[in-house]
């Protein structure tokens, strides 16, 4: 027997190990690539097919193009809207900015999870024990993530081409695939952004935070550039479009006036960042970031006297990050509100009212802008649920509960801190919008802006309640539940809202329940109901948590 063992020699059991990291990464990114490719394709298809039904006559289409095509408000928020009298132009406008931003978020979250998240979890060292270097491993992960992005593009493209064959749509194969490319371009760029941030930051959370700030700045630059298009400050500011990666995607102009040359900065930016990520990976220690993070310090014991204090301490950086992002976006919105709102008049109001923001001028623009801020703050609420689940999954909650803290007290503390953070962000949205507007010499006034800020909080509380209930009942599915609720609400509100689909569908959107303050007065009754449902769901979630097993990751 011994002789047999010593005689045994290693045999090849599969592909060379150097390919395994890329294959592993591709397998993990494939599922979400397929899912989001399908979602993108369905959104494009439903937009294209709904156009003919809603705007059935030439006169209606011309009126849409005349009233909405030159609107600075929608241009600032969603990008330019050329050729709205055609199904192609309408489809490109309706889906572009929403899908571009969703794609960017997918990219930055996926790459920071696959790179920095694996490293934080200790699995990265296992992969690096294969015959490879850290730089090559990063390159392989990026290659694998690229497979996910390609699949996302292919599925979006196939669905677009398929619907393009319809006699009411008529989008060619090349145009359909080009549209899909434009929709996926931001995902690819932000995969690379996330990869670089994963090398710079000392943890996944910070890497995702830095990438999110980069996305926020990109959106802000594009918004300022597009708000100035054709306006008083237009020519100078519109050049900013080339300073924003999201601006490059916008410049692809699928289905209307294709400019494939805009692919050059996109490809160059992606390749440069990918190369930079590989380079930086080879120059840092495992577990550390390029940007220094002190490993030792004198103890800072403030807030470390109880479970709620700990929650404040752990979640404060993220809460401040969200509030800062909201404040910057609100200030930018306030800055462009006057110019953008000046073009909203007459029949344009009907179009804006379909998005839930009736009225005219600055108020109508701000109503729409606060809808976007409401979505942002609702996603912050989802982050509160994620953080609570992470505490349980990583075993940190065991330490807290084993040390004389009840489940109820811990959970109530987390929810209270989360609610305080949402309130802070909502008020920041109102205050900084007012400041932005004040710098331009006009606006909706401080009390109204503050009302608008407070008005975005109830949907976030509702989302937090749904997340808390899911956490109590199905902890491993809590994040999925809250993101599905929010994702569905966003798609219905923005994609459905432009097409004024039936109100039963629109009513399924959380954001459709919210009054578009300051375009309309706050509906405190609806706000009370949303808040009440949210608080009741939190209470039920706490009851469920008390009765269930703790579950690891």
């Amino acid at each position, binding site marked *: 027997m011994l002789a047999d063992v010593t005689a045994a020699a290693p045999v090849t059991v599969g592909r060379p190990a150097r390919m395994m990291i890329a294959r592993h990464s591709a397998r993990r990114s494939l599922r979400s690539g397929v899912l989001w490719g399908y979602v993108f394709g369905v959104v494009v298809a439903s937009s294209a097919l709904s156009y003919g039904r809603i705007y059935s006559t030439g006169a209606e289409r011309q009126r849409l193009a005349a009233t909405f095509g030159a609107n600075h408000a929608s241009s600032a928020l969603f990008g330019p809207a050329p050729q709205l009298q055609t199904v192609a132009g309408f489809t490109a406008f309706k889906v572009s900015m929403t899908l571009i931003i969703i794609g960017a978020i997918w990219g930055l979250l996926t790459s920071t999870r696959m790179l920095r998240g694996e490293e*934080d979890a200790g699995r990265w060292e296992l992969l690096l024990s294969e015959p490879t270097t850290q730089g090559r491993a990063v390159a392989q992960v990026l290659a694998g993530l690229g497979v996910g992005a390609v699949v996302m593009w292919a599925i979006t493209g196939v669905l677009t081409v398929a619907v393009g064959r319809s006699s009411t749509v008529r989008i060619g194969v090349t145009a359909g695939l080009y549209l899909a490319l434009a929709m996926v371009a931001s995902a690819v760029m932000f995969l690379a952004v996330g990869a670089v941030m994963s090398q710079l930051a*000392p*943890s996944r959370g910070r890497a995702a935070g830095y990438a999110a700030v980069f996305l926020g700045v990109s959106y802000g630059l594009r918004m300022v550039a597009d708000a100035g298009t054709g306006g008083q400050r237009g020519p100078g500011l519109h050049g900013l479009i080339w300073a924003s990666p999201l601006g490059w995607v916008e410049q692809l102009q699928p289905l209307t006036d294709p400019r494939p040359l805009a692919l050059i900065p996109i490809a160059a930016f992606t390749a440069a960042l990918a190369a930079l990520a590989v380079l930086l990976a080879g120059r840092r220690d495992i*577990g550390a970031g390029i940007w220094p993070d*002190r*490993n*030792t*310090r*004198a*103890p*800072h*014991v403030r807030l*470390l*006297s*109880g*479970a709620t204090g*700990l929650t404040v301490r*752990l979640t404060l950086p993220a809460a401040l990050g969200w509030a800062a992002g909201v404040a910057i976006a609100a200030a930018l919105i306030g800055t462009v509100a006057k110019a953008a709102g000046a073009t909203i008049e007459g029949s344009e109001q009907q179009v804006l009212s379909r998005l839930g923001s009736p009225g005219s001028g600055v108020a109508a623009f701000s109503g729409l802008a606060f809808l976007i801020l409401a979505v942002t703050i609702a996603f912050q609420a989802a982050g509160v649920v994620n953080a609570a689940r992470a505490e349980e999954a*990583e*075993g*940190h909650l*065991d*330490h*807290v*509960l*084993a*040390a*004389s*803290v*009840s*489940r109820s007290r811990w959970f109530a503390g987390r929810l209270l801190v989360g609610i305080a953070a949402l309130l802070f962000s909502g008020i920041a949205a109102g205050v900084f919008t007012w400041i932005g507007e004040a710098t331009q010499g006009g606006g909706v006034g401080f009390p109204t802006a503050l009302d608008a800020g407070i008005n975005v909080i109830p949907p976030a509380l509702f989302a937090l309640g749904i997340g808390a209930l899911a956490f109590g009942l199905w902890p491993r599915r809590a994040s999925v539940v809250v993101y599905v609720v929010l994702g569905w609400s966003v798609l219905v509100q923005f994609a459905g809202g432009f097409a004024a689909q039936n109100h039963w569908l629109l009513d399924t959107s959380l954001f459709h329940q919210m009054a578009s303050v300051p375009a309309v007065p706050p509906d405190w009754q609806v706000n009370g109901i949303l808040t009440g449902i949210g608080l009741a769901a939190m209470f039920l979630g706490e009851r469920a948590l008390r*009765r*269930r*097993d*703790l579950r690891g990751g």
Partner: protein
Amino acid sequence: MAEAKPAIRTRGLSKRYGQVTALADLDLDVAPGEVVGYLGPNGAGKTTTIRLLLGFIRPTAGRAEIFGMDCQRDPVMVHRRVAFVPAEASLWPSLTGAETLRLLGRLHGQADLPYRDELIARFDLDPSKKVRAYSRGNRQKVLLIAALMTRADLLVLDEPTSGLDPLMEVAFRHCVTEARERGQAVFLSSHVLSEVEALCDRVVILRDGRVAEAGTLSEMRHLSAVTVEATFAGEVPDLSGVPGVSGVVVDGHSLRCQVTGLVQPLLTALANAGVTRLLSGEPSLEELFLAYYGQSAPSEGVTGVAS
């Protein structure tokens, strides 16, 4: 009065996950001041038991009490008298060791600060480092210090020395011995059998979610086979048919066998066989453990010299 109640008492404690039985009908008693070792292979139900005792998971049947308090009904009151070290040293990476110790002490509600500082010195821990910069062993030290500094009446330790170097294992054994001398009970789940053998008054061995054996080491050894080795001047006698003798291995003029129950029949059989050397030994905990899981004990188990 509270000290008269058992530190741990379970009756019919069971936990099922769907069709899988993680723990079945566990009856367990740990007295105050007693150190009990809890052994079993991976998946035997050790961590499930501990999570049931701490109220982290709900039993399918049965009940568990700590110092007379129901672990499910009064978890907060229970935890005030318990300190826990989990198997995986997962801590908040952004906090330093000192901050973590401060936090865990405040959460528990009691901490002997001079003893904490002494433990930091004993375990040679640098508390100014962030948890993210600690090795696995150092994270384990933080958890051990956090548990020991509470001076809790019951220490529940799940694989407490995983990742510790041999010097730190010695420091840990000293701490557990001190805790027992102070009257603290210790429930020690471990795979380090020498550690359990050195520290524990009693041992409970789990298999497939059920108690396979429980008792003091001497009781368990008494019930188990004794290994006997004998060397003869002439031929090795035939021991077939001798009551209690099994596993006879003959090597030239030497013989090795196991004896269960009374040794007298074997001694009678050997009396006129010209024995020149006779060795016997009780099984080590490792041999007992392996015996319960169907593996043969290593030959190094014979230690005692009978003649």
